[in-house]
């Protein structure tokens, strides 16, 4: 399954909910304000580490750059462009947006 999160980890509990409920495997895509979860020094680092052990973790490049956080991206997180976003949606059987 493709899991999409678009809220900052310090603003909403979407990442937590996803980690609590989601089955291992599949991909976690962070977009919009959720990209902050994949930046160094964020208080959600432990959750991100857990996510990396259970899913492939991706961030949308345009959202990361818009927020000036490309220089803070955590190692092992894959950046994808809009085409890559579409590919991920196509590659997975289903998709859950943790709004």
């Amino acid at each position, binding site marked *: 399954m493709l899991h999409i999160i678009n*809220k*900052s980890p310090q603003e909403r509990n979407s990442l937590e909910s996803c980690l609590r409920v989601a089955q291992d495997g599949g991909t976690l895509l962070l977009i*919009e304000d959720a990209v*902050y979860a994949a930046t160094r*020094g964020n208080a959600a680092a432990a959750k991100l580490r857990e996510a990396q052990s259970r899913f492939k973790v991706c961030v949308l490049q345009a*959202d990361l750059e*818009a*927020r*000036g956080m490309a220089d803070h991206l955590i190692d092992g997180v894959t950046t994808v462009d809009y085409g890559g976003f579409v590919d991920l949606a196509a590659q997975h059987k289903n998709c859950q947006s943790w709004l």
Partner: protein
Amino acid sequence: MEGIVKKFMFINRKAPYGTIYALESLEVVLISAAFDQDVSLAFVDDGVYQLKKGQQTKGIETKNFSPTYRALDGYDIEKLYVEQESLEARGLTEEDLLVDVTVLSRKEMGEMMEQQDVLLSF
């Protein structure tokens, strides 16, 4: 009303592009500058992200309004306060910010808020 100067503080708690709050706050701040009041801006929680250096919004086709924070000085808005704990919880330091600010501890920020006549929340 003339001659009465009140202390206005804009409290910014949201990241810049996920919602409209940050931009709306900035516009109200610029307008408020015309009223010759004692205006300050506070950045706490995800609001500190508004001041992050290096924002490049071409990819999301949204206006990059971060350079406008550097114009505030020319509007005589010189008091920008950032909460230390909020920076730390996001892996940021003062060097990551695109404008000169005063970094306050959580306690100092609370005291600063207490001194205001009007708090505007964004």
